[in-house]
C-alpha cells in the first residue's frame, strides 16, 4: 500500500455505504499483489477502460472448470496482478456458515490468494480472488481438506444454488437445500468436467416468490408450489382487516380475481388461483400454501448472449419433488439427463438450451423428452394459422 497513488479510489472510501476500496486496502495491507490490484484499478479509473487481458487457460488437474483465469494487460506496471485468478468454490446450500469455517476459508485466501473474496459470486459460488496458476493446486487441496470443492465454469453445469427454504422460511414447498446438495452431487462430474455446448444452470427456490431469481438466471429453475387450497385462518384475517384495506391490497391485486372478502369472510376460489403468492405474502399470519406440495420446472432462462435475454418458461406445472426426494431425486435427474441428451443431439456451440428448444419448437421438444403438451406452457395458444401438421393423416383413417 501507498505504493500507488489512488486519488480516485480514495474518493470512494468516503460516504456511508461500506467501501469496497477499504476492503481491498485491508487485504492489500497483508498482500503485496493486492496492492497492485489497487494500482491497476486506479489506472482503469484514469484510463476509463478495463486493463485485464482476454482469456488464458488456468485450472487444477482433472477439472475442466472452477477457476477463471485473469492476467493483467499492464503487468510491467503492476507485476502483482500479472496473474490474479479467481476460484469458484461451491458454497453451502442456503449460504450458511460457521465462524470456524469462515476463518479457515480466510486463512486459505490469505495464504494462496490475494486476501479478498466475493461473498458470493452471482451464481452463488464463494469466489476467492488473486492467486496464480502455480498456487492453484495447493489452494484447491487446502479447500478440499476442509470439505470445500470447486464449482462450475465454462461449458459445465454451473454451481446450483438454493434459497434458504425450509431452514427459515414458512413458505418453502420442498426442501431446497437438500435438493440442491443431492442433485449437485449427483451431477458433480458435469460440474467439474464441462460436457456441454455451453453453460447450464440450475437454481432452487422454495416457492413462486423465487428468492434465487431462478426464473431469470437458470436454465432450469425449480420452484416450489402447492396444488390444493390455500389455508385460511379467518381470525387472523379479521386482525389484518383492522390494520389495512384487504379489498384494495389483496382482493383487487389477485391476478386471477379469485378472492372474495364479504361480510368479514375471506374466501378463495382455488380452482382459479395461479399460486402467485401475493395474498399469502401480504397476510403471512392468516394464509399459508396448501398441503399437497411439489415443484414446478421452468426452462431456458439466460442472459442476452447470443440471441437476446430469456426468462424460463413453464415446462412442468407440477411434479411431486417431495416424493422424489425419497427416491433420491431419480425422476428429476432422469429428466435432466433427457434434456441434456436432447441438447447433445440437437444443439450447437454456444447455444443455451433455451435457444435450442425455441429453434426446435417447444412442442417438438416436449414430445422428445416425454412431457405431455399442456396449456400452462404458453401465455396463450398460437395466433397464426401456420400450423405444421405432423403427418398427412387421411380422413378415412
Amino acid at each position, binding site marked *: 500500500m501507498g505504493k500507488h497513488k489512488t486519488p480516485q479510489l480514495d474518493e470512494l472510501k468516503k460516504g456511508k455505504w461500506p467501501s469496497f476500496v477499504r476492503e481491498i486496502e485491508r487485504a492489500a495491507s497483508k498482500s503485496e499483489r493486492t496492492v497492485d490490484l489497487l494500482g491497476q484499478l486506479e489506472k482503469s479509473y484514469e484510463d476509463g477502460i478495463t486493463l485485464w487481458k482476454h482469456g488464458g487457460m488456468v485450472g487444477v488437474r482433472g477439472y475442466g472448470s472452477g477457476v477463471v483465469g485473469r492476467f493483467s494487460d499492464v503487468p510491467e506496471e503492476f507485476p502483482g496482478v500479472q496473474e490474479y485468478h479467481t476460484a469458484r468454490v461451491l458454497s*453451502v446450500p442456503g*449460504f450458511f456458515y460457521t465462524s470456524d469455517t469462515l476463518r479457515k476459508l480466510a486463512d486459505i485466501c490469505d495464504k494462496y490468494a490475494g486476501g479478498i473474496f466475493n461473498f458470493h459470486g452471482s451464481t452463488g459460488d464463494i469466489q476467492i480472488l488473486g492467486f496464480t496458476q502455480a498456487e492453484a493446486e495447493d489452494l484447491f487441496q487446502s479447500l478440499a481438506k476442509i470439505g470445500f470443492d470447486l464449482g462450475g465454469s465454462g461449458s459445465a453445469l454451473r454451481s446450483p444454488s438454493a434459497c434458504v427454504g425450509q431452514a427459515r422460511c414458512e413458505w418453502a414447498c420442498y426442501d431446497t437445500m437438500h435438493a440442491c446438495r443431492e442433485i449437485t452431487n449427483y451431477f458433480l462430474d458435469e460440474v467439474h468436467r464441462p460436457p456441454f455446448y455451453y453453460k447450464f444452470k440450475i437454481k432452487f427456490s422454495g416457492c413462486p416468490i423465487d428468492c434465487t431469481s431462478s426464473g431469470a438466471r437458470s436454465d432450469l429453475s425449480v420452484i416450489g408450489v402447492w396444488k390444493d387450497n390455500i389455508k385460511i385462518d379467518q381470525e387472523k384475517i379479521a386482525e389484518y382487516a383492522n390494520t389495512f384495506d384487504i379489498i384494495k391490497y389483496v382482493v383487487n391485486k389477485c391476478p386471477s380475481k379469485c378472492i372474495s372478502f364479504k361480510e368479514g369472510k375471506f374466501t378463495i376460489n382455488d380452482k382459479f388461483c395461479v399460486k402467485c403468492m401475493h395474498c399469502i405474502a401480504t397476510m403471512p399470519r392468516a394464509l399459508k400454501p396448501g398441503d399437497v406440495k411439489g415443484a414446478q420446472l421452468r426452462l431456458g432462462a439466460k442472459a442476452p448472449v447470443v440471441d437476446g435475454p430469456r426468462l424460463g418458461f413453464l415446462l412442468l406445472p407440477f411434479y411431486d419433488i417431495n416424493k422424489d426426494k425419497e427416491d433420491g431425486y431419480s425422476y428429476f435427474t432422469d429428466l435432466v439427463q433427457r434434456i441434456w441428451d436432447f441438447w447433445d443431439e440437437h444443439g450447437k456451440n454456444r447455444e443455451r438450451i433455451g435457444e435450442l428448444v425455441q429453434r426446435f419448437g417447444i412442442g417438438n421438444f416436449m414430445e422428445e423428452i416425454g412431457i405431455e403438451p399442456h396449456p400452462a406452457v404458453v401465455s396463450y395458444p398460437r395466433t397464426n394459422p401456420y400450423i405444421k401438421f405432423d403427418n398427412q393423416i387421411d380422413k378415412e383413417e
Partner: protein
Amino acid sequence: MGQEDKRITDVGVPNYEDYLPPIIKDNYGKWLYHEVIKPGVLLHVAESGDKLYSVRVGSPRLLSTDTIRDFANLAEKYCGGFLRFTTRNNIEFLLTDENNIDLLTKEINEMGFPVGGIDNTIGNVIHTQGWLHCHTSASDASGVVKAIMDELYDYFVNPLLPAKIRMAFACCINMCGSVATSDIALVAVHRKLPEINDEKLRNLCEIPTVVASCPVHAIRVVKRDDKTSVEIDKKLCFYCGNCYTVCPAMPLSDKNYDGLAIFVGGKISNTRTKPTFAKLAVPFLHNNPPRWPEVVDAVKTIVKAYKNGAQKGERVGEWIDRIGWPRFFEITGFEFTKYHIDDFRLSEATLNYSNHSTL
C-alpha cells in the same frame, strides 16, 4: 498412483447440516410465520414457538479476509458462531436472544456496515466484477454501486418506499447477475466497433466461431493483405462484444465510447404480476468515475418519481404499467428516443398495437 491417492477431488457440496444453528435444525420445515420487527430485523416464529431473529447487514460483497474474520467474531459473540449470506449478498446474523439485536447492530455499525435491506427498502445492489476483474467490462461495478448507495443509504436502512426496489448492475451486456429483471438495472455498454487486429486474429481465433458469434451476422470473412481475416458491417454492428468474447483480437473498450444504460421496471417474483424484464429508460450515460454523477442523478430521479407516484405495494414496473410509459418519460424528464424502440429479434412483439394512449 502413490501420491495421487492422497489428492482429494470431487468432495462436492458441503453438508449444510454442519452449518445450521440448533434452532434451525430443530424447526427445519416447521416455521409458522415471520414479521419485520424493526428495520433490518426479521423475526421467524416456528410451530414450536421458537423464535429466530435475523439481522441483515449490507455488504459490498467484495470482502477482505479480515472483515470475514470480524464477522466470524461477531457471529460467535452473538449467535453461537452461525451466520448466513443472502441471495443478494447481504450477511444475516441468526440470533435467538432478542436482547442481542441492538448490541450486535451497534457493533456492526461501528464496523462501518449498515443493518437494513428488509421490507420496502432498496436492497443490496447485485453487481459484477467490473474493471476490478473482468476483461470485457465497459464500466466499473463496485464503484458505480458505491456511488449510488452512498446517496441512497437511507433507503437501505429504512423502509421508505411503496415497495421493494431491487437494483442491479452489470459491467457488460453479458449481464452476469440478476440484472435483466431488476426494478432498476444498470448495464454498461460499449458503443464502438471492435478493432480488428489481423495478426492476433489469425493466431488466436477460429474464424468460423467469430463469424457465428455475432447476433446480427455483421461479421464477414475477407482477405486483407492476401490473408484471411474478417470485416464488420458497421451498418449492423451494435457493439455487443460477442465477437470479442470468443476472440481477443477484437477489443471494443474505449474511454469515450463506453458507458451505461439504465433499464427500469423488471421483477422476478411471481407475486401479483408475472416476472418481467426491465425496460430501457436511459440509453446512454458516459462513464464519469469515480462518482458517476449523471448515473447517480438518473437513479435518484427514478427513485424519487417512484416514491412520489406509486401506490403502496406497487413495484416500479407495476407503477409504470398503471401510469403508462408516456407519463413515466414525462415525469422523469428522460428523453424518449428511437433507441427506446426495440429493433432486435422480437421487437415486433413490443409495439403498441392499439389506440390506447394518454394524450
